[in-house]
């Protein structure tokens, strides 16, 4: 930052030198250069061939200095954003530890905003002071509108350095951290999800609308996942999935009717679309999945409960997110299992569900 300031000062001095040089040729041009910045272009062309008054080298120097200062400022800004994201991530992990399932969370902690959490990632080591018991109203999860109001929508990249990857949020999409997404899921009376990384939604989608949709990003930190024979042959997969007792992936539950898009693998991304009949539902829905395998686990992107006919949109969205996710160096998938990091299931079992 200090270097950027020094460069800006030198650029300012060069700007003064430009005005002085032009002033010596013509007082009017000097005054115009002072008040109209673009007039320096006119002066540059006008005095190009006059060795005593030309300003090309001064202008070139000024532009280079300004560009260098701008670059330094942008770099500093990105570092600041990364620090803020890391603080939010730490706050999210704190919230994960304090999730209702762990039985240690207070309603005040659960309902606080992500921004507040990011500013206070360090907890006091002082013993707790006695406090009154929370009322049933305070224990109740926030409603959806409150949870959305308190949420911080993120753009650009979601760094998850502890998990070893970075999610790139496409243009016109924004993301919610795990802690914000968990609060929204609590407001919808959904059980806490230990694998949740965040939600990604299109900016045009109101998340409290009846037809709202979003991508759920999850991380299965179970280790390296092997294929298990021909892992993506759709027929054995379909048969296994229809008799599976449960699945590790997010989705609508119920029974699998078939694959609207059968599982396939391309560029390290496995994607498919399931048509499911949820329990007690009269109409079937679509669940779109994309997986990105890593050395230490699997990144999952799921859009669930979509109407029939929407497979193109949800399939394209989960595939794009999975393809754009960046695994850290050393965290990329390897064809052979690394020592001691093998998941207790195969890719086939992950796609089809456990028997």
């Amino acid at each position, binding site marked *: 930052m200090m270097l950027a300031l020094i460069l800006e000062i030198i650029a300012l001095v060069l700007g003064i030198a430009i005005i002085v040089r032009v002033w010596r040729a013509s007082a009017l041009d000097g005054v115009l250069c002072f008040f109209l910045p673009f007039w320096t272009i006119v002066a540059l062309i006008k005095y190009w061939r006059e060795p005593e008054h030309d300003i090309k080298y001064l202008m070139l120097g000024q532009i280079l200095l300004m560009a260098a200062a701008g670059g330094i400022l942008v770099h500093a800004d990105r570092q600041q954003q990364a620090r803020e994201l890391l603080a939010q991530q730490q706050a999210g992990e704190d919230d994960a530890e304090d999730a209702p399932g762990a039985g240690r969370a207070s309603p005040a902690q659960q309902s606080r905003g992500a921004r507040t959490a990011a500013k206070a990632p360090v907890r006091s080591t002082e013993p707790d002071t006695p406090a009154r018991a929370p009322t049933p109203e305070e224990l109740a999860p926030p409603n959806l509108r409150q949870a959305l109001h308190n949420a911080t929508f993120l753009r650009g990249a979601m760094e998850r350095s502890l998990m070893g990857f970075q999610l790139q949020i*496409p*243009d*016109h999409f924004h993301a919610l951290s795990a802690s914000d997404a968990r609060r929204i899921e609590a407001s919808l009376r959904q059980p806490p999800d230990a694998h949740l990384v965040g939600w990604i939604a*299109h900016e*045009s989608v109101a998340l409290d609308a009846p037809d709202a949709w979003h991508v759920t990003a999850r991380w299965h930190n179970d280790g390296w996942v092997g294929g298990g024979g021909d892992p993506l042959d*759709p*027929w054995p997969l*379909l*048969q296994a999935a*229809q008799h599976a007792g449960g699945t590790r992936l997010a989705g609508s539950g119920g*029974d699998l*009717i*078939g*694959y*609207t*898009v*059968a599982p*396939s693998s391309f560029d390290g991304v496995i994607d498919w679309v399931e048509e499911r*009949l949820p329990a007690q539902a009269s109409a079937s829905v679509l669940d779109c999945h994309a997986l990105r395998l890593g050395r230490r686990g699997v990144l999952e992107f799921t859009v669930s409960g979509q109407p029939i006919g929407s*497979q*193109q*949109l949800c399939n*394209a*969205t989960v*595939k*794009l997110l999975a*393809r*754009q996710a960046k695994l850290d160096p050393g965290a990329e998938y390897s064809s052979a299992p690394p020592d001691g990091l093998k998941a207790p299931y195969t890719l086939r079992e992950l796609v089809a569900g456990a028997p």
Partner: protein
Amino acid sequence: MLSAFVLSAALWAAADADEAARIEQLIHHPAAAPVVAPTKPANARAAAKTAADPAAALIGQRVRVRTVDRGAYAGTLESVDANTLVLRIDLSKQALSYSLPRHAVAEVNAESAP
């Protein structure tokens, strides 16, 4: 080496940009988005009308149905006509009669067939 890297990076970026543009189109103009559905030539359609439907021979058998959008469904073939193909799919608590539009069906095979 460097040029190959730059070219592959550019292709990746272009593919992602295409995908992002397609998503925007599907969100804002879903009806205008291209639907991938191969059409049969006119003589093939005429021939299909006159010839016996090969899927009709599989009624009552376990079949595997491939759709034009890479879909995969399996079940017992209940009925077939010019517009729909009905499968009985056994779910955990019920048997479902599931209709597939014929124009979306790419192929129907008996389950024992390769």
